[in-house]
């Protein structure tokens, strides 16, 4: 888990996106392909409400899209977004510019397979 302060310190595109949280969400959706608000909130230390607000703004602009799976609303980068390729290229450049240990946080599988009933250790 990343805490909010370290996330804000390591934001590379934050000035461009206007928010370190928004940058984290987009980078997470790029690397994880999909995620849900509670997971993103847990990862960042931001409130669920703050994450939902960012996702709502991104969805309104067509940058991300969501679909229901069971009772969970899953978000992904929108493949129909007109600047999708440019956005992905920019996000990949940002990942490349990060120190290795910071970059690895985005590639750590969070939804790893787990037998039912087995406690999750982080």
């Amino acid at each position, binding site marked *: 888990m990343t805490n909010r302060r370290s996330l804000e310190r390591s934001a590379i595109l934050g000035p461009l996106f206007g928010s370190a949280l928004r940058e984290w969400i987009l980078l997470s959706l790029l690397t994880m392909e999909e995620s849900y608000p509670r997971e993103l909130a847990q990862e960042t230390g931001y409130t669920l409400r703050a994450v939902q607000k960012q996702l709502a703004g991104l969805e*309104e602009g*067509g940058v991300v899209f969501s679909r229901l799976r069971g009772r969970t609303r899953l978000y992904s980068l*929108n*493949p*129909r977004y*007109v600047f999708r*390729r440019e956005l992905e290229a920019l996000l990949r450049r940002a990942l490349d510019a990060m120190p290795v240990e910071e970059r690895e946080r985005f590639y750590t599988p969070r939804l790893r397979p787990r037998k039912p009933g087995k406690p999750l250790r982080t």
Partner: protein
Amino acid sequence: MKLSRLTTEELAAVVGDELERRGLTAVLTGGACVMVYAEGKYVSHDLDFVVTPSDRLGEVEDALAGLGFRAEGRMFVHPEIEMAVDVGNIPPVSVGREILQPPAPRVVSGRKLRMLSPTDCVKDRLAAFYFWHDRQALEQALLVCLAQPVNIREVGRWSRAEGMEERYREFQRELGRRRRS
């Protein structure tokens, strides 16, 4: 003017013309274009407009209030009609990666309406089929192709540029099958 008596195309023209009169550019996109082009074989409940410049969206509310619509979330609803107006779509008008210039207005019952051409409407629906795996959108694209002159070669060029050659072939196979039946 009784909005409930108008066709979808006429209603869209009333809304589009009212926005254009205020110096806004409003382009009808989405399922309502399918409804117009498919000549009654598809029903949409939204009029999706892309309005520019986007920093003047506040004026849209005034314009639509003058026609009897009231804001409900991002939609505008009218007490006499089922169709809602959505002006919350972010510019530019685009199909997949391709940015479109606003089409020239056509005149519908004396009012100006900008809307996607049948070919761009098919691309728009296919984008939903290609990227969101939306089979209903494929059906809509086919309905437009069967009812309107569509530049299929251009649809093929665009599909390849989007990296969707295989799905385009699926669309072509289905279109051929429908045309034969």
